[in-house]
């Protein structure tokens, strides 16, 4: 799951294709992803994993890193 997200970010949202994203790398506060990119990522995740992320879950702690996204997505699965 992290690999899919990471590939999408590297290919579509960041200009440097050779970059390697670590599981705990801060994607947001570093400015790596801007507001529109992160919203695009949200849209991608929704489609790819067939879930709906409600606006109130769109928080920094759920999306700050690949690990955070992983944990968040796992938690939504569990609550179903």
């Amino acid at each position, binding site marked *: 799951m992290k690999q899919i997200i990471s590939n999408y970010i590297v290919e579509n949202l960041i200009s440097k294709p050779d970059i390697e994203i670590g599981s705990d790398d801060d994607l947001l506060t570093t400015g790596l992803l801007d507001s529109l990119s*992160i*919203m695009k990522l949200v849209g991608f995740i929704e489609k790819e994993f067939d879930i709906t992320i409600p606006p109130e879950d769109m928080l920094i702690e759920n*999306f700050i890193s690949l690990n955070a996204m992983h944990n968040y997505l796992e938690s939504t699965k569990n609550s179903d």
Partner: protein
Amino acid sequence: MSEKFDPKSLTGSQYLIWTGQKIHPNVPLYNVPFSYRISGDLNPDVFEAAFKNLVAQTDSLRTIVREESDRPVQIVKKELDFSFDFIDFQNKEEAANKWIEEEVNRRFDLGKILFHSALLRIASGDFIWYINQHHIITDAWSSVILLKRLDLLYKSQVTKSDEEKNFPQFETYRTYELEARNMAPLESSTYWKKVRDEVVYSKILGTESQFTTNAKRVSFELNQERSDKLRQLASKDSFRTFTIDLALYNIFSTLIFAYLRRVTQQTKISFLTPAHNRTSPEFKEAAGVFISFYPILLEIEQAETFVSLHKKVQHTLNSYFKHIHPGLSTADLTRNVNVVFNYNNTRLGTFNNLHVAGTYHHPGHNDPQHDLLFQVHDFNDTGRFQIHLDLKTDLFSDQMIRFISDQFINMVDSLLENPEQLIDKISVLGTEERQFLVEGLNNSKEDYPEETLLQGFDRAVCHYPNHPAVQCEDQILTYQSLDQLANQFSRYLRDQCKLNEGDVVAILMDRSLEMAVALYGILKAGLVYLPIDPSFPSERVNYLLTDSGAKVALTQSHLRYLIPEDSQIELVDSLDFLERFKTTSLNPERAINDIYCILYTSGSTGNPKGVMLHHAGSTNNLYWLQQTYPLASGDSILQKTPLTFDVAIWEFFWPLRAGAKLVITKPGGHNDFQYLVDMMRIHKVHSIHIVPSILRELLKVQSIKACTDLKYVFSGGEALTPSIRDEFVKVLPHTQLDQQYAPTETAIGVSFWVCERRGNEKRLPIGKPVANSQFYIVDQYGELNPFGLPGELYIGGVQVTPGYLNQATRTSAKFIEDKIGDGHFKLYKTGDIVRHRKDGALEFLGREDNQANIRGMRIELGEIQSAISKINNVEQVIVLAIEAEEEEKMLCAFIKKADKEETVNCKGSLIGQLPPYMIPSQFVFLDEFPLMTSGKIDQQKMNLLAQQQSTQIENIQSTTIEPRNELEELIHDVWCEVFKLKRIGMNDNFLDLGGHSLLAIRITNKIKSTLELDIQMHMLFKYPTIASISQYLEQKIKRLLDQET
């Protein structure tokens, strides 16, 4: 909007810009001028070479727009002829600024070149790179990209490393947009459709939309402290989100919602905000117009705080971002939204390693739909937010623009001070505005005699003892004889009727000399008079006598039956009985704040309440009247108003302070229009105070034209309409018409307005306060409203009466301590909704209880009524907000026609007169309005009528007229084709059919090609029916033929 686009077609945003420019072909409303000030030395030749490279390597700069058949297309030119100027201003910075100021207005020919650029040298080591582009090839972000590109190209030029840069091009986005627009997720298009149906126009500070572009930009920055605090807030728990910029964007959006709430008082508020659409790394570095507008919409509650509002904003913006998609930002979606918020977080960086400071100029015009734009940025990376407000100058005066800036900063400060506070309770007024509202608009302080009503009369008796004071038919009393009779009458009241000072005396008499003497006698005895009209039903007479505690009732034999037997009744059939009383004055000791009269006003609910009038208030008013409309000793005034109205006070007491003559009209004469006009003419009346509906009738009397001595007509009591004014000016060209506003609670007249002789205003103002009076317009909490915003009128000053007789609770509810002004007098809460015009004159909008709230818009029903009443063949109209399905309310107009056989074109006439949300959705025609026993209109019955969908509903379709000649037929076919309709009436309105600018372009193009006639699209807005446009074209064709022969 699934239209086919060929490879060179415009993007959605470009198409909207192109349309807007077509509507205003000669206005530079889409110019995006930037100047970049570069500190350090530059080589102008190198710079020019770099710029030429920039153009060569940037497709957006080489783009032009042409029309092919009736569609715009863009062409990227391989080679483009352009000049790049270098201008040396030789230390004259002012001259450079002036040059820029003029150049920002440059009009671009869409088909030739869409930018203009130059290098300006201010001084050595001080340059400005100026670039002005048409919005169709740029947005603000793109202007910054050009600077960065130019920086690279200049450096390469310097080092002669002249390689291609491979900059991303706009064409990539254009093709992406074109493809993507057909792939919008259903969920997103559904989302925007819903938003489109719910967005509302923001009626900022009471202004109404005008289809103009004139605008100005006011710029200021939030200082370091404010800016730092905002950033701190953005990282706090409840405000932070994905990124700091997104958090700031959310905070500014919250501020703008909060601000709009306070200056519109609407519950639903929307504004447009652009999506930058630079989603991929490539797009982030491409020049061109990427942005597209989407509305965001919120409902704001009374209990809203910044924190709760921010939550809503965050929630809504999340959905906003999720649903933006190429092709979904349409004219349809954005048309009704008049506020724009643009947050830009790009930074300029440096140029050739030199410091750069950018300025974003304004071309002096806004898009006609955009009344107010908020732009927030920090291009120059100062750490301080730069705010530009672009405001339409037809709506906002310079003064209002200053106020608005202060209001916005106050909003920021309130947020920073306490995000938990209630939005509706924030004090938004700046110091200058508050002072203007409290003092500037109420600059009415004048000295006035602190005396009772009688002291003015006493002076006149001394000055003009033998002048005629009162005339009733052939009988005339001189000042001296009136004085003596009144003295005798006062002794009669005190000695024989055994009344004490301050006692209440009812007076139920027909107009007569006796009545005049009795009135002055009551005052001279130090008593209080209570007028009762002979037309009152006995129930009401009883109530007034009991409630006022009147000791004695003065009446005439023929009216005696109206008074209950157990009252002390005194008959005043003649004055002969006064002979036995002394003619000298009792000289009662009355203070100026003592009461002299009780006037009962019929409240809309419950029993009538007695307003206590005191000497000081009325004296102030009469003194002001005399100063403003000088009355001379030879003049005369008619007494025609029933004593129960406060106008009778000015009729009785004003002339007799001035040595003029009071002419008493016969009983019932106030409803005999011919008689009134005869009296005015015969007695050379100086001025008359009359309600508008009676004035309308008087103007119909032929002989009124002979009243050449009439100097002033005062009108009040109900709205004086522009149509009455127009008629007045025709009939009485040399008489001044003034509107007055006069709640009994503030004595006689408290505002005045000299009507302009002509004008196309919707309503005539009630004007400005009379001497020593103050008007404050307040919100639901009694706090001053910002200038221009409608609110309840509070009146302060010496004319505010002491309140209601025997009704302490009601009095303290309506007469409150003045916490706004100097606190010297009480404030009277009128319950009337008013607003200030730009010039400070007050407009009356209606009663507090005559407002409807429809889809979050507060609507003054009175305003709609007055618009409908001006339509041909409308005799009477009432507009109600009636319950439709699902608790939604809708506007329904009930109309009584003047001529039943004729039709009334309601909707068609109202378009353009009223904003769309104020046009009733239903028109019901009635022969008579259902009345209740009180004589008032039975609104419940009307509600029922509307819900029954009576067959009398007249729709605009019902009067379809077929084409009557070849030309009309031809135009009809064009319209039908464009509107995709089978049949359109000759008088159906273009806008009413759902017409908008795009359709207008199609229609004019089709007409052009069919008739080979040049017709401008704005003509369609000027001549919005097939009939009128055909007529216009016919004239045009005739002229052309004439020229040929």
